[in-house]
């Protein structure tokens, strides 16, 4: 099952509904008497609904359906075609490993309420588990009690934290954290920033400033800028991603709150339209519930069901 077992577990809860429908669609399409026929309009329609229902967006869903319909050939199950198509979208997003620095600087950005603070703590925990000595930087000096929240999480993750006072300049907190990281050899330095709507130009400029401070203090920093998206988010996430790429130079996505409910299909749309890779997924509320993303496992998890046996469970 691997690391992604927990994702699969999380997805399974509601994926069932989705998959049940997909089973129905592909069963119809793959029925022996229709195998040699191309994907019909009804099937294409149902498939489109399925993908849009997973927040994949009209454009990406449309192109996927078109690609699958065009490629449908005799004997090839629809399910495999769809999986292959989604996988190629995800793998099309650039996947070079982020550079490391001394210290490595990771900025975490996003709109309000997506799970940035929690993701920062989980990411620190993940690095510590891999033997690094991470430092978290509480640069969300805006939201009431955000610093306290991260402090409690940092204790759970057993990592060091540099904090600023509420209302102080976030860039100065980042400066302090980088100085501390350099002096004591803590790396990576993971910076939690305040949530901001991407439409607020002045707040977006504040991110650019934090970025500049990091660049000035550590060569090559920030080495990674992660945009945290709530897995239940809709099409607005595409706009968010564009704006955060422009202001903060986002290099990857963290898909938070993937447990239990959504499919996070927007990640496919973002990979498709913007070429941004998904780096991590949040799959639960525990400190260890953030795992590196793996495209094949994600697509497998999305489509894993009782089909393996050849027939849906309900018919066994």
């Amino acid at each position, binding site marked *: 099952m691997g690391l992604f077992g927990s994702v699969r577990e999380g997805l399974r*809860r*509601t994926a069932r509904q989705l998959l049940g429908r997909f089973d129905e669609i592909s069963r119809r399409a793959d029925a022996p008497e229709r195998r040699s026929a191309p994907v019909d309009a009804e099937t294409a329609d149902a498939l489109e*609904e399925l993908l*849009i*229902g*997973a*927040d994949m*967006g*009209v454009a990406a869903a449309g192109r996927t359906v078109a690609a699958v319909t065009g490629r449908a050939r005799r004997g090839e199950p629809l399910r495999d075609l769809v999986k292959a198509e989604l996988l190629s979208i995800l793998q099309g997003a650039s996947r070079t490993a982020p550079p490391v620095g001394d210290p490595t600087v990771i900025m975490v950005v996003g*709109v*309000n*309420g*997506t*799970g940035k603070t929690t993701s920062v703590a989980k990411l620190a925990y993940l690095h510590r588990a891999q033997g690094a000595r991470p430092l978290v930087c509480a640069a969300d000096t805006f*939201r*009431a*009690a*955000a610093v*306290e*929240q991260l*402090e*409690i*999480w940092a204790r759970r993750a057993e990592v060091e934290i540099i904090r600023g006072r*509420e209302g102080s300049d976030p860039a100065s907190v980042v400066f302090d954290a980088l100085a501390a990281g350099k002096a004591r050899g803590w790396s990576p330095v993971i910076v939690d920033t305040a949530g901001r*709507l*991407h*439409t*607020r*130009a*002045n707040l977006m400029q504040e991110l650019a400033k934090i970025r500049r401070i990091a660049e000035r203090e550590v060569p090559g920093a920030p080495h990674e800028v992660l945009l945290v998206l*709530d897995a*239940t*988010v*809709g*099409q*607005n*996430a595409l*706009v*968010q991603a564009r704006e955060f790429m422009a202001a903060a130079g986002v290099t990857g996505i963290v898909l938070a*709150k993937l*447990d*239990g*409910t*959504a*499919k996070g*299909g*927007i990640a496919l749309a973002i990979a498709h339209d913007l070429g941004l890779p998904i780096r991590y997924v949040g799959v639960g509320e525990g400190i260890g519930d953030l795992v590196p993303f793996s495209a094949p496992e994600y697509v497998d998890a999305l489509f894993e069901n009782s089909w393996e046996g050849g027939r849906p469970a309900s018919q066994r």
Partner: protein
Amino acid sequence: MFESLSERLQGIFRTLRGEARLSESAVESALREIRMALLEADVNFRVTKAFIDRVRERAVGQDVLRSLTPGQHVVRIVRDELIALFGDAPGGLRAAKSTPHVVLLVGLQGAGKTTAAARLARWMARRGRHPLLVSTDVRRPAAIEQLGVLGRQAGIRVFDPAGEADPVARASRAIAEARTLGFDAVIVDTAGRLHVDSALMGELQAIRDAVHPDDALYVADAMTGQDAIRSAGEFNRHIGVTGVILTKLDGDARGGAALSVVAVVGVPIAFVGVGERLDDLEAFQADRLVSRLLGMGDVLSLIERAEHVVDRDEAARLERKLRADDFTLEDFLAQLKTLRKLGPLEQVLAMLPGMGRLKDLAGASPDERQLNAVEAMINSMTPGERRSYRIIDGSRRRRIARGSGTAVEDVNRLLRQFMQMRKMLKAVGAGGPGGGGRRRMRQAAAMLRGRGLGA
């Protein structure tokens, strides 16, 4: 970026101008665009489908009103149908069965419940109520503290029985506290939870059964995608939701998921969160959200806000001064302050139709800091200078720049802009009492009010 639906439709119908009837093929291509726009706004796939069928039924073969282009006509049908879908139940709270009025806030993590709690308290306080806030979120680190801070900022009492870690007890003790101290409302904030988490849903039911809420509001993020229906539906099934608070509408999210929730779950929208400040919560009005959904701006809200902050006597005085060619830097400053009272400039601009695209132009986004600098410069002038800008010579400019922390070039630019503005205003005001300028303004306002279609 999303193109506004009305613009798209204008494009389709540009070639059809002058047609007296909506032909089937024209309607079909319009419906394709509408479908796309709704799906991009995260309206549920099935809701979209059903909706399109309804619009088709109404649109085909209809006579086009003389005052409208075919495109506008279809948008009007879409608009009417959307408003009908939302229903005309007014937003806000329901009538309380007893005192205190108990409001329970529920929802997923990160939807904005805690902020909504403080804002709702402010909304009630503005209406003469005395709400008490209480957090039952013992799970998220520092959540209780966050509500405490927000309560202090909002000037609202927060009940926080130290050491009480049982959510149900926290809530029921708050009700008792409110009765003792004479608060007439209690707003209960709860921990964010997934709708599939049955243990936490049980906890929520226990809180509900302990406090008997008059309103159980589901807090939903305007940016939510297609899953909104399922989670709202589950909360409704477990708790009995009476209304929705739609948060983060101050971004550029269209809020289409809200439409799905209303259509599928059958729960009305009670409030919308429209900004970052604690007063930025408004009772829901269907026509405004629909305008937004269609990308038509929110001119009505802007007019309403302007009516709040603009002093009529002051406006009349300014107009007299304009005609007497007597507009000074002091008046300019007063106007600037009025404009800023409307809210952050970006937010004000976002309400204007077509302004969505302004952001795409480099450097066109408004900078509050520039306005600060202008205020500082005018404040650094002597009363004499403010009244007659002509006396401001080189040495005075240098002094003003020093006094306001700006450069001489900034002062020059301000004075140049001020002179241009005077010239412009003179041209507008030249028509005399009730003259062309005023009439034009009135016409513009009427246009915005009456037919925002395709604006």
